[in-house]
Protein backbone atom coordinates (compact mmCIF):
# COMPACT_ATOMS: atom_id res chain seq x y z
CA UNK A 1 0.00 0.00 0.00
CA UNK A 2 2.79 2.40 0.93
CA UNK A 3 4.56 1.71 -2.29
CA UNK A 4 1.35 2.33 -4.25
CA UNK A 5 0.96 5.67 -2.51
CA UNK A 6 4.59 6.48 -3.28
CA UNK A 7 4.03 5.68 -6.97
CA UNK A 8 0.95 7.90 -7.00
CA UNK A 9 2.90 10.70 -5.34
CA UNK A 10 5.64 10.39 -7.98
CA UNK A 11 3.03 10.56 -10.72
CA UNK A 12 1.52 13.78 -9.36
CA UNK A 13 4.96 15.27 -8.73
CA UNK A 14 6.03 14.62 -12.33
CA UNK A 15 2.82 16.19 -13.59
CA UNK A 16 3.34 19.32 -11.49
CA UNK A 17 6.81 19.79 -12.99
CA UNK A 18 5.24 20.21 -16.41
CA UNK A 19 2.34 22.30 -15.20
CA UNK A 20 1.99 25.83 -16.50
CA UNK A 21 1.95 28.97 -14.44
CA UNK A 22 -1.31 29.54 -12.59
CA UNK A 23 -3.28 32.73 -12.32
CA UNK A 24 -6.31 33.52 -10.21
CA UNK A 25 -8.95 35.68 -11.84
CA UNK A 26 -11.62 37.14 -9.59
CA UNK A 27 -14.61 39.36 -10.20
CA UNK A 28 -16.10 41.95 -7.88
CA UNK A 29 -19.05 44.29 -8.29
CA UNK A 30 -18.28 47.82 -7.23
CA UNK A 31 -20.22 50.98 -6.59
CA UNK A 32 -18.52 54.35 -6.18
CA UNK A 33 -15.15 52.67 -5.68
CA UNK A 34 -16.34 50.29 -2.97
CA UNK A 35 -17.20 46.60 -3.27
CA UNK A 36 -20.97 46.28 -3.66
CA UNK A 37 -22.63 44.19 -0.97
CA UNK A 38 -25.51 41.84 -1.75
CA UNK A 39 -28.90 43.31 -0.79
CA UNK A 40 -27.35 46.45 0.77
CA UNK A 41 -29.18 49.66 0.02
CA UNK A 42 -27.31 52.35 -1.92
CA UNK A 43 -28.25 55.75 -3.34
CA UNK A 44 -28.30 55.48 -7.12
CA UNK A 45 -26.90 57.99 -9.65
CA UNK A 46 -30.54 58.95 -10.30
CA UNK A 47 -30.96 59.67 -6.57
CA UNK A 48 -33.23 56.84 -5.55
CA UNK A 49 -32.33 53.91 -3.35
CA UNK A 50 -31.47 50.54 -4.85
CA UNK A 51 -30.13 47.12 -3.94
CA UNK A 52 -28.83 44.20 -5.96
CA UNK A 53 -29.58 40.66 -4.82
CA UNK A 54 -28.26 38.65 -7.74
CA UNK A 55 -25.44 39.33 -10.15
CA UNK A 56 -24.04 36.54 -12.30
CA UNK A 57 -22.41 36.27 -15.69
CA UNK A 58 -20.64 33.92 -18.05
CA UNK A 59 -17.11 34.85 -19.05
CA UNK A 60 -15.15 32.95 -21.67
CA UNK A 61 -12.12 32.90 -23.98
CA UNK A 62 -9.64 34.68 -21.73
CA UNK A 63 -6.70 35.83 -23.81
CA UNK A 64 -4.15 34.98 -21.13
CA UNK A 65 -5.29 31.44 -20.39
CA UNK A 66 -3.90 28.50 -22.31
CA UNK A 67 -7.36 26.96 -22.70
CA UNK A 68 -9.20 29.55 -24.79
CA UNK A 69 -12.56 27.76 -24.80
CA UNK A 70 -12.75 27.88 -21.04
CA UNK A 71 -16.15 29.14 -19.87
CA UNK A 72 -16.64 30.30 -16.29
CA UNK A 73 -19.81 31.16 -14.46
CA UNK A 74 -19.14 34.12 -12.18
CA UNK A 75 -21.39 34.79 -9.20
CA UNK A 76 -20.37 38.24 -7.96
CA UNK A 77 -21.85 37.41 -4.54
CA UNK A 78 -20.57 33.81 -4.44
CA UNK A 79 -18.10 31.79 -6.51
CA UNK A 80 -16.41 34.80 -8.02
CA UNK A 81 -12.92 33.55 -8.73
CA UNK A 82 -11.23 30.76 -10.60
CA UNK A 83 -7.72 29.53 -11.11
CA UNK A 84 -6.49 28.96 -14.62
CA UNK A 85 -3.18 28.09 -16.23
CA UNK A 86 -1.55 30.72 -18.38
CA UNK A 87 1.27 30.96 -20.88
CA UNK A 88 2.39 34.13 -19.19
CA UNK A 89 1.62 37.80 -19.71
CA UNK A 90 3.38 38.73 -22.88
CA UNK A 91 0.82 41.35 -23.75
CA UNK A 92 -0.10 44.41 -21.80
CA UNK A 93 -3.80 43.77 -22.13
CA UNK A 94 -6.33 41.16 -21.17
CA UNK A 95 -9.42 40.28 -23.20
CA UNK A 96 -12.36 37.99 -22.58
CA UNK A 97 -15.92 37.54 -23.74
CA UNK A 98 -18.97 38.40 -21.71
CA UNK A 99 -21.21 35.50 -22.70
CA UNK A 100 -21.04 32.14 -24.43
CA UNK A 101 -20.32 31.65 -28.13
CA UNK A 102 -22.86 30.48 -30.70
CA UNK A 103 -21.57 26.90 -30.88
CA UNK A 104 -21.93 26.33 -27.14
CA UNK A 105 -25.40 27.89 -27.25
CA UNK A 106 -26.60 25.27 -29.70
CA UNK A 107 -24.87 22.05 -28.64
CA UNK A 108 -27.45 20.71 -26.19
CA UNK A 109 -27.18 20.62 -22.38
CA UNK A 110 -23.67 20.46 -20.98
CA UNK A 111 -22.13 19.70 -17.61
CA UNK A 112 -20.10 21.99 -15.36
CA UNK A 113 -20.42 25.76 -15.64
CA UNK A 114 -22.83 25.40 -18.57
CA UNK A 115 -25.19 22.94 -16.83
CA UNK A 116 -28.76 24.26 -17.18
CA UNK A 117 -29.09 23.52 -13.43
CA UNK A 118 -27.22 26.78 -12.89
CA UNK A 119 -30.38 28.62 -13.96
CA UNK A 120 -28.50 30.53 -16.62
CA UNK A 121 -30.26 28.81 -19.54
CA UNK A 122 -33.62 29.68 -21.10
CA UNK A 123 -35.52 26.38 -21.20
CA UNK A 124 -38.41 27.80 -23.28
CA UNK A 125 -36.10 29.42 -25.81
CA UNK A 126 -32.74 27.63 -26.15
CA UNK A 127 -29.80 29.83 -25.26
CA UNK A 128 -27.69 30.94 -22.33
CA UNK A 129 -28.33 33.96 -20.15
CA UNK A 130 -24.98 35.72 -20.39
CA UNK A 131 -25.61 38.25 -17.66
CA UNK A 132 -28.19 38.18 -14.86
CA UNK A 133 -28.85 41.14 -12.60
CA UNK A 134 -31.75 41.19 -10.13
CA UNK A 135 -32.68 43.69 -7.49
CA UNK A 136 -34.97 46.63 -6.89
CA UNK A 137 -35.00 50.39 -6.67
CA UNK A 138 -37.45 52.82 -5.10
CA UNK A 139 -38.35 54.39 -8.45
CA UNK A 140 -37.93 51.45 -10.85
CA UNK A 141 -39.38 48.86 -8.42
CA UNK A 142 -38.37 45.46 -9.73
CA UNK A 143 -35.04 45.09 -11.58
CA UNK A 144 -34.69 41.80 -13.46
CA UNK A 145 -32.29 41.79 -16.35
CA UNK A 146 -31.55 38.50 -18.09
CA UNK A 147 -29.27 39.42 -20.96
CA UNK A 148 -28.35 36.92 -23.68
CA UNK A 149 -28.79 36.06 -27.33
CA UNK A 150 -26.42 34.50 -29.82
CA UNK A 151 -28.26 35.11 -33.10
CA UNK A 152 -28.26 38.21 -35.27
CA UNK A 153 -29.63 40.85 -34.96
CA UNK A 154 -29.74 40.34 -31.17
CA UNK A 155 -26.32 38.90 -30.53
CA UNK A 156 -25.34 39.99 -27.03
CA UNK A 157 -21.90 38.33 -26.90
CA UNK A 158 -19.31 41.04 -26.21
CA UNK A 159 -15.52 41.14 -26.17
CA UNK A 160 -14.01 43.08 -23.33
CA UNK A 161 -10.41 44.29 -23.46
CA UNK A 162 -8.69 45.71 -20.40
CA UNK A 163 -5.18 47.15 -19.99
CA UNK A 164 -2.90 44.98 -17.89
CA UNK A 165 0.28 45.85 -16.06
CA UNK A 166 3.20 44.06 -17.70
CA UNK A 167 4.64 42.90 -14.40
CA UNK A 168 3.80 39.32 -13.75
CA UNK A 169 0.92 38.77 -11.49
CA UNK A 170 -0.63 35.64 -10.06
CA UNK A 171 -3.90 37.35 -9.25
CA UNK A 172 -6.12 39.59 -11.35
CA UNK A 173 -9.25 41.23 -10.00
CA UNK A 174 -11.84 42.49 -12.49
CA UNK A 175 -14.42 44.99 -11.33
CA UNK A 176 -17.92 45.51 -12.66
CA UNK A 177 -19.00 49.04 -11.83
CA UNK A 178 -22.73 49.37 -11.19
CA UNK A 179 -22.42 53.17 -11.43
CA UNK A 180 -21.23 52.89 -15.04
CA UNK A 181 -23.90 50.29 -15.79
CA UNK A 182 -26.73 52.22 -14.11
CA UNK A 183 -27.92 53.83 -17.37
CA UNK A 184 -28.75 50.36 -18.76
CA UNK A 185 -30.81 49.54 -15.68
CA UNK A 186 -32.78 52.77 -15.92
CA UNK A 187 -33.35 52.31 -19.64
CA UNK A 188 -34.98 48.87 -19.29
CA UNK A 189 -35.11 47.39 -15.77
CA UNK A 190 -36.81 44.21 -16.95
CA UNK A 191 -35.32 42.23 -19.85
CA UNK A 192 -36.11 38.55 -20.26
CA UNK A 193 -35.16 37.52 -23.78
CA UNK A 194 -32.80 38.37 -26.61
CA UNK A 195 -33.89 41.80 -27.89
CA UNK A 196 -32.72 45.23 -28.98
CA UNK A 197 -32.76 46.30 -25.31
CA UNK A 198 -30.60 43.32 -24.35
CA UNK A 199 -28.08 44.34 -27.01
CA UNK A 200 -27.98 47.91 -25.66
CA UNK A 201 -27.52 46.63 -22.11
CA UNK A 202 -24.67 44.34 -23.26
CA UNK A 203 -23.01 47.34 -24.91
CA UNK A 204 -23.21 49.31 -21.67
CA UNK A 205 -21.93 46.33 -19.66
CA UNK A 206 -18.71 46.21 -21.70
CA UNK A 207 -17.96 49.77 -20.54
CA UNK A 208 -18.45 48.85 -16.89
CA UNK A 209 -15.55 46.37 -16.55
CA UNK A 210 -12.08 47.44 -15.40
CA UNK A 211 -9.05 46.03 -13.60
CA UNK A 212 -9.68 46.55 -9.90
CA UNK A 213 -6.98 47.98 -7.72
CA UNK A 214 -7.42 48.10 -3.97
Amino acid at each position, binding site marked *: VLRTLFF*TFCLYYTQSLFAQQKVTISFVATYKGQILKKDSVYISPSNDSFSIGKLKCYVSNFSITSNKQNVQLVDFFGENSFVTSTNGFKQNKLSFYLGVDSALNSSGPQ*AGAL*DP*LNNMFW*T*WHSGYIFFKLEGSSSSLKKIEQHIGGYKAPYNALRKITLPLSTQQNSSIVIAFDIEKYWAAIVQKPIIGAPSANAVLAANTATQAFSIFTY
Partner: protein
Amino acid sequence: LKTKVILHIAILIAFASSFISNAYWDFKPTPMPLQVPKGFPQPNAAIFKNNPITKEGFALGKKLFYDFTLSKDSQVSCASCHQQYASFSTYDHDFSHGIYDTHTYRNAPPLVNLAWMKSWHWDGAINHLANQPLAPFTAKDEMGETLENIVKKVKANKDYAPMFLNAFGTSNVNIPNITKALTQFTSSLVSANSTYDKVMRGEQKFSKPQEAGYTIFKTHCNGCHTAPLFTTNTFANNGISLNDKNDKGLMNITGQAKDSLSFKIPTLRNIGQTIPYMHDGRFNELAKVVNHYTSLDTSLPNLHPLLRKKINLSNTEKQQLILFLFSLSDTSFTKNKLYYP
Protein backbone atom coordinates in the same frame (compact mmCIF):
# COMPACT_ATOMS: atom_id res chain seq x y z
CA LEU B 1 9.94 -9.34 -7.76
CA LYS B 2 9.05 -8.64 -11.39
CA THR B 3 5.48 -9.83 -10.93
CA LYS B 4 5.22 -7.66 -7.84
CA VAL B 5 6.26 -4.57 -9.77
CA ILE B 6 3.81 -5.35 -12.54
CA LEU B 7 1.09 -5.84 -9.94
CA HIS B 8 1.88 -2.47 -8.42
CA ILE B 9 1.78 -0.75 -11.79
CA ALA B 10 -1.56 -2.40 -12.54
CA ILE B 11 -2.98 -1.23 -9.23
CA LEU B 12 -1.65 2.25 -9.87
CA ILE B 13 -3.20 2.44 -13.35
CA ALA B 14 -6.56 1.21 -12.04
CA PHE B 15 -6.34 3.67 -9.16
CA ALA B 16 -5.41 6.61 -11.40
CA SER B 17 -7.99 5.90 -14.07
CA SER B 18 -10.75 5.69 -11.47
CA PHE B 19 -9.79 9.24 -10.50
CA ILE B 20 -9.67 10.53 -14.02
CA SER B 21 -12.99 9.48 -15.47
CA ASN B 22 -14.91 7.58 -12.79
CA ALA B 23 -15.42 5.22 -15.69
CA TYR B 24 -17.34 1.98 -15.64
CA TRP B 25 -14.90 -0.76 -16.49
CA ASP B 26 -17.12 -2.93 -18.68
CA PHE B 27 -18.81 -0.05 -20.49
CA LYS B 28 -19.72 -1.41 -23.91
CA PRO B 29 -23.07 -0.08 -25.10
CA THR B 30 -24.61 -1.66 -28.19
CA PRO B 31 -24.71 0.75 -31.15
CA MET B 32 -28.18 1.30 -32.58
CA PRO B 33 -27.56 3.90 -35.30
CA LEU B 34 -30.44 5.66 -36.99
CA GLN B 35 -31.64 3.80 -40.07
CA VAL B 36 -32.00 6.43 -42.79
CA PRO B 37 -34.98 5.39 -44.96
CA LYS B 38 -34.32 5.06 -48.66
CA GLY B 39 -34.80 8.41 -50.39
CA PHE B 40 -34.50 10.43 -47.18
CA PRO B 41 -31.80 13.10 -46.89
CA GLN B 42 -29.08 12.75 -44.25
CA PRO B 43 -30.29 13.60 -40.74
CA ASN B 44 -29.05 16.54 -38.67
CA ALA B 45 -25.59 15.35 -37.57
CA ALA B 46 -25.45 17.82 -34.65
CA ILE B 47 -28.03 15.68 -32.80
CA PHE B 48 -25.71 12.66 -32.70
CA LYS B 49 -22.47 14.51 -32.05
CA ASN B 50 -21.20 13.18 -28.69
CA ASN B 51 -24.43 11.19 -28.41
CA PRO B 52 -24.63 8.16 -30.73
CA ILE B 53 -27.77 6.09 -30.29
CA THR B 54 -27.20 2.88 -28.38
CA LYS B 55 -29.63 0.17 -27.31
CA GLU B 56 -28.98 1.07 -23.67
CA GLY B 57 -29.36 4.84 -24.18
CA PHE B 58 -32.57 4.29 -26.14
CA ALA B 59 -33.97 2.07 -23.35
CA LEU B 60 -33.12 4.70 -20.73
CA GLY B 61 -34.62 7.47 -22.85
CA LYS B 62 -37.80 5.45 -23.30
CA LYS B 63 -38.13 4.89 -19.55
CA LEU B 64 -37.72 8.63 -18.92
CA PHE B 65 -40.22 9.40 -21.69
CA TYR B 66 -42.92 7.33 -19.96
CA ASP B 67 -42.05 8.39 -16.39
CA PHE B 68 -45.01 10.24 -14.82
CA THR B 69 -43.14 10.92 -11.59
CA LEU B 70 -40.90 13.46 -13.28
CA SER B 71 -43.75 16.00 -13.33
CA LYS B 72 -44.57 18.16 -10.30
CA ASP B 73 -47.83 16.34 -9.55
CA SER B 74 -46.61 12.93 -10.82
CA GLN B 75 -49.49 12.86 -13.32
CA VAL B 76 -47.82 13.94 -16.55
CA SER B 77 -45.09 12.24 -18.57
CA CYS B 78 -43.75 13.11 -22.01
CA ALA B 79 -46.02 10.37 -23.31
CA SER B 80 -49.12 12.04 -21.85
CA CYS B 81 -49.07 14.59 -24.64
CA HIS B 82 -47.12 12.51 -27.13
CA GLN B 83 -49.21 9.35 -27.55
CA GLN B 84 -47.82 6.72 -29.88
CA TYR B 85 -51.19 5.84 -31.45
CA ALA B 86 -51.54 9.52 -32.38
CA SER B 87 -48.08 9.53 -33.96
CA PHE B 88 -46.83 10.93 -30.64
CA SER B 89 -49.21 13.89 -30.63
CA THR B 90 -52.24 14.39 -28.34
CA TYR B 91 -55.16 12.66 -30.00
CA ASP B 92 -58.32 14.72 -30.50
CA HIS B 93 -57.18 17.61 -28.28
CA ASP B 94 -56.54 21.15 -29.46
CA PHE B 95 -54.52 21.74 -26.28
CA SER B 96 -52.91 19.11 -24.07
CA HIS B 97 -53.37 18.61 -20.33
CA GLY B 98 -50.52 19.76 -18.11
CA ILE B 99 -50.11 19.40 -14.35
CA TYR B 100 -53.00 20.36 -12.01
CA ASP B 101 -55.57 20.45 -14.83
CA THR B 102 -53.77 23.16 -16.75
CA HIS B 103 -53.85 23.34 -20.52
CA THR B 104 -50.98 24.06 -22.87
CA TYR B 105 -51.31 27.01 -25.24
CA ARG B 106 -50.33 25.11 -28.37
CA ASN B 107 -51.28 21.85 -30.06
CA ALA B 108 -48.77 19.08 -29.25
CA PRO B 109 -46.88 18.35 -32.48
CA PRO B 110 -46.28 14.72 -33.50
CA LEU B 111 -42.81 13.36 -32.76
CA VAL B 112 -41.97 12.06 -36.21
CA ASN B 113 -38.64 12.15 -38.02
CA LEU B 114 -37.28 14.69 -35.53
CA ALA B 115 -33.72 13.86 -36.55
CA TRP B 116 -34.23 15.74 -39.83
CA MET B 117 -35.16 19.00 -38.12
CA LYS B 118 -32.86 21.89 -37.29
CA SER B 119 -35.20 23.53 -34.78
CA TRP B 120 -38.16 22.31 -32.75
CA HIS B 121 -41.48 23.67 -31.47
CA TRP B 122 -44.03 25.60 -33.53
CA ASP B 123 -41.90 28.74 -33.25
CA GLY B 124 -38.48 27.07 -33.57
CA ALA B 125 -37.57 28.13 -30.03
CA ILE B 126 -35.51 25.00 -29.45
CA ASN B 127 -32.13 24.86 -31.20
CA HIS B 128 -31.01 21.31 -30.36
CA LEU B 129 -33.08 18.17 -29.88
CA ALA B 130 -31.36 17.57 -26.52
CA ASN B 131 -32.48 21.02 -25.33
CA GLN B 132 -36.11 20.19 -26.08
CA PRO B 133 -36.97 18.20 -22.90
CA LEU B 134 -35.97 21.19 -20.74
CA ALA B 135 -39.01 23.10 -22.02
CA PRO B 136 -41.80 20.63 -21.06
CA PHE B 137 -39.94 19.67 -17.85
CA THR B 138 -40.16 23.24 -16.57
CA ALA B 139 -43.23 24.74 -18.31
CA LYS B 140 -45.93 25.57 -15.72
CA ASP B 141 -48.66 24.17 -18.00
CA GLU B 142 -46.78 20.96 -18.84
CA MET B 143 -44.65 19.06 -16.28
CA GLY B 144 -44.02 22.13 -14.11
CA GLU B 145 -40.94 20.80 -12.35
CA THR B 146 -37.55 22.35 -11.61
CA LEU B 147 -34.50 20.81 -13.26
CA GLU B 148 -33.03 20.26 -9.77
CA ASN B 149 -36.04 18.14 -8.80
CA ILE B 150 -35.96 16.19 -12.06
CA VAL B 151 -32.38 15.15 -11.26
CA LYS B 152 -33.35 14.36 -7.63
CA LYS B 153 -36.29 12.18 -8.70
CA VAL B 154 -34.24 10.24 -11.23
CA LYS B 155 -31.52 9.71 -8.60
CA ALA B 156 -34.10 8.55 -6.04
CA ASN B 157 -35.56 5.90 -8.37
CA LYS B 158 -33.31 2.86 -7.97
CA ASP B 159 -34.23 1.48 -11.42
CA TYR B 160 -32.25 4.23 -13.10
CA ALA B 161 -28.70 3.86 -11.71
CA PRO B 162 -27.87 0.63 -13.62
CA MET B 163 -29.49 2.06 -16.76
CA PHE B 164 -27.30 5.17 -16.65
CA LEU B 165 -24.29 2.95 -16.04
CA ASN B 166 -25.13 0.82 -19.09
CA ALA B 167 -25.97 3.80 -21.30
CA PHE B 168 -23.23 6.24 -20.36
CA GLY B 169 -20.67 4.28 -18.35
CA THR B 170 -21.42 6.32 -15.26
CA SER B 171 -24.18 6.21 -12.68
CA ASN B 172 -23.88 9.98 -12.46
CA VAL B 173 -27.38 11.33 -13.08
CA ASN B 174 -27.31 14.84 -14.50
CA ILE B 175 -29.20 17.00 -16.97
CA PRO B 176 -26.82 16.36 -19.90
CA ASN B 177 -27.21 12.57 -19.56
CA ILE B 178 -30.99 12.71 -18.98
CA THR B 179 -31.49 14.82 -22.10
CA LYS B 180 -29.02 12.74 -24.14
CA ALA B 181 -30.99 9.57 -23.34
CA LEU B 182 -34.30 11.22 -24.24
CA THR B 183 -32.72 12.41 -27.48
CA GLN B 184 -31.67 8.87 -28.33
CA PHE B 185 -35.28 7.77 -27.94
CA THR B 186 -36.99 10.68 -29.70
CA SER B 187 -34.54 10.81 -32.60
CA SER B 188 -35.27 7.11 -33.22
CA LEU B 189 -38.95 7.83 -33.90
CA VAL B 190 -38.77 7.35 -37.65
CA SER B 191 -41.83 6.88 -39.84
CA ALA B 192 -41.33 5.89 -43.50
CA ASN B 193 -43.54 2.90 -44.10
CA SER B 194 -46.93 4.35 -45.05
CA THR B 195 -49.05 3.35 -48.05
CA TYR B 196 -47.38 6.26 -49.85
CA ASP B 197 -43.92 4.79 -49.16
CA LYS B 198 -45.06 1.34 -50.28
CA VAL B 199 -46.37 2.83 -53.52
CA MET B 200 -43.08 4.66 -54.07
CA ARG B 201 -41.18 1.43 -53.47
CA GLY B 202 -43.42 -0.30 -56.03
CA GLU B 203 -44.92 -2.67 -53.45
CA GLN B 204 -48.45 -1.33 -53.67
CA LYS B 205 -50.66 0.87 -55.84
CA PHE B 206 -52.70 3.97 -55.00
CA SER B 207 -56.47 3.72 -55.47
CA LYS B 208 -57.77 5.80 -58.40
CA PRO B 209 -58.97 8.72 -56.17
CA GLN B 210 -55.66 8.64 -54.20
CA GLU B 211 -53.74 8.78 -57.46
CA ALA B 212 -55.71 11.89 -58.44
CA GLY B 213 -55.18 13.31 -54.93
CA TYR B 214 -51.43 12.75 -55.25
CA THR B 215 -51.40 14.86 -58.43
CA ILE B 216 -53.32 17.64 -56.64
CA PHE B 217 -50.89 17.39 -53.72
CA LYS B 218 -47.87 17.75 -56.01
CA THR B 219 -49.42 20.83 -57.64
CA HIS B 220 -50.57 22.73 -54.55
CA CYS B 221 -48.96 21.34 -51.36
CA ASN B 222 -45.55 19.82 -52.08
CA GLY B 223 -43.84 23.26 -52.10
CA CYS B 224 -44.00 23.46 -48.30
CA HIS B 225 -44.93 19.89 -47.32
CA THR B 226 -42.16 18.48 -49.47
CA ALA B 227 -41.82 14.70 -49.86
CA PRO B 228 -40.33 12.50 -48.48
CA LEU B 229 -40.38 14.32 -45.11
CA PHE B 230 -43.61 16.14 -46.11
CA THR B 231 -42.19 19.33 -44.65
CA THR B 232 -39.31 21.64 -45.49
CA ASN B 233 -38.85 22.08 -41.72
CA THR B 234 -38.88 25.84 -42.28
CA PHE B 235 -41.43 28.44 -41.22
CA ALA B 236 -44.36 29.91 -43.09
CA ASN B 237 -47.27 32.25 -42.61
CA ASN B 238 -50.17 30.22 -44.03
CA GLY B 239 -52.74 32.96 -43.57
CA ILE B 240 -53.98 31.71 -40.22
CA SER B 241 -55.60 34.42 -38.08
CA LEU B 242 -54.31 35.53 -34.68
CA ASN B 243 -55.84 33.45 -31.87
CA ASP B 244 -57.08 34.66 -28.48
CA LYS B 245 -53.73 33.71 -26.95
CA ASN B 246 -52.06 36.38 -29.11
CA ASP B 247 -49.68 33.68 -30.40
CA LYS B 248 -47.54 35.23 -33.12
CA GLY B 249 -45.33 32.15 -33.57
CA LEU B 250 -41.84 32.78 -34.92
CA MET B 251 -42.11 36.49 -34.15
CA ASN B 252 -42.24 35.65 -30.41
CA ILE B 253 -38.71 34.31 -30.80
CA THR B 254 -37.13 36.58 -33.40
CA GLY B 255 -38.87 39.83 -32.49
CA GLN B 256 -39.17 40.55 -36.23
CA ALA B 257 -42.53 41.83 -37.49
CA LYS B 258 -42.08 39.95 -40.79
CA ASP B 259 -42.23 36.70 -38.78
CA SER B 260 -45.68 37.47 -37.36
CA LEU B 261 -47.92 34.38 -37.55
CA SER B 262 -45.19 32.28 -39.10
CA PHE B 263 -45.17 28.76 -37.72
CA LYS B 264 -43.09 25.66 -38.36
CA ILE B 265 -44.43 23.75 -41.35
CA PRO B 266 -45.62 20.46 -39.85
CA THR B 267 -44.99 17.10 -41.47
CA LEU B 268 -48.04 15.52 -43.10
CA ARG B 269 -46.85 12.03 -42.18
CA ASN B 270 -49.53 10.28 -40.09
CA ILE B 271 -51.80 13.31 -40.53
CA GLY B 272 -54.80 10.99 -40.18
CA GLN B 273 -53.67 10.29 -36.59
CA THR B 274 -52.78 13.85 -35.52
CA ILE B 275 -56.25 15.41 -35.42
CA PRO B 276 -56.89 18.36 -34.77
CA TYR B 277 -54.71 20.63 -36.91
CA MET B 278 -52.70 23.88 -36.86
CA HIS B 279 -50.61 25.30 -33.99
CA ASP B 280 -53.73 25.74 -31.86
CA GLY B 281 -55.69 22.75 -33.14
CA ARG B 282 -58.42 25.02 -34.48
CA PHE B 283 -59.43 22.68 -37.32
CA ASN B 284 -60.92 19.40 -36.13
CA GLU B 285 -61.08 17.74 -39.54
CA LEU B 286 -58.95 17.65 -42.66
CA ALA B 287 -61.77 19.09 -44.80
CA LYS B 288 -61.53 22.31 -42.76
CA VAL B 289 -57.77 22.46 -43.36
CA VAL B 290 -58.26 22.07 -47.10
CA ASN B 291 -61.03 24.69 -47.07
CA HIS B 292 -58.71 27.08 -45.24
CA TYR B 293 -56.30 26.96 -48.18
CA THR B 294 -58.96 27.18 -50.90
CA SER B 295 -60.74 30.14 -49.27
CA LEU B 296 -57.56 32.00 -48.29
CA ASP B 297 -57.27 35.78 -48.75
CA THR B 298 -54.16 35.76 -50.96
CA SER B 299 -53.43 39.44 -50.24
CA LEU B 300 -52.70 38.92 -46.51
CA PRO B 301 -49.43 40.48 -45.26
CA ASN B 302 -46.41 38.18 -44.76
CA LEU B 303 -48.21 35.30 -46.47
CA HIS B 304 -45.89 32.58 -47.82
CA PRO B 305 -45.17 33.41 -51.51
CA LEU B 306 -46.47 30.03 -52.70
CA LEU B 307 -49.88 30.85 -51.23
CA ARG B 308 -50.26 34.11 -53.17
CA LYS B 309 -51.83 32.14 -56.02
CA LYS B 310 -55.45 31.22 -55.42
CA ILE B 311 -56.03 27.47 -55.00
CA ASN B 312 -59.26 26.34 -56.65
CA LEU B 313 -60.44 22.79 -55.96
CA SER B 314 -63.80 21.16 -56.63
CA ASN B 315 -65.45 19.14 -53.88
CA THR B 316 -64.36 15.94 -55.64
CA GLU B 317 -60.76 17.16 -55.84
CA LYS B 318 -60.81 18.03 -52.13
CA GLN B 319 -62.00 14.48 -51.36
CA GLN B 320 -59.26 13.04 -53.55
CA LEU B 321 -56.62 15.16 -51.81
CA ILE B 322 -57.82 14.02 -48.37
CA LEU B 323 -57.76 10.38 -49.49
CA PHE B 324 -54.18 10.87 -50.59
CA LEU B 325 -53.29 12.43 -47.20
CA PHE B 326 -54.64 9.31 -45.47
CA SER B 327 -52.12 7.27 -47.48
CA LEU B 328 -49.42 8.90 -45.31
CA SER B 329 -50.55 6.90 -42.26
CA ASP B 330 -47.92 4.46 -41.06
CA THR B 331 -49.36 1.86 -38.68
CA SER B 332 -46.02 0.07 -38.45
CA PHE B 333 -44.89 3.28 -36.71
CA THR B 334 -47.93 3.91 -34.50
CA LYS B 335 -47.90 0.24 -33.46
CA ASN B 336 -44.14 -0.28 -33.34
CA LYS B 337 -43.51 -2.38 -30.20
CA LEU B 338 -39.98 -0.94 -29.95
CA TYR B 339 -41.54 2.30 -28.69
CA TYR B 340 -43.93 0.66 -26.18
CA PRO B 341 -43.29 1.50 -22.51
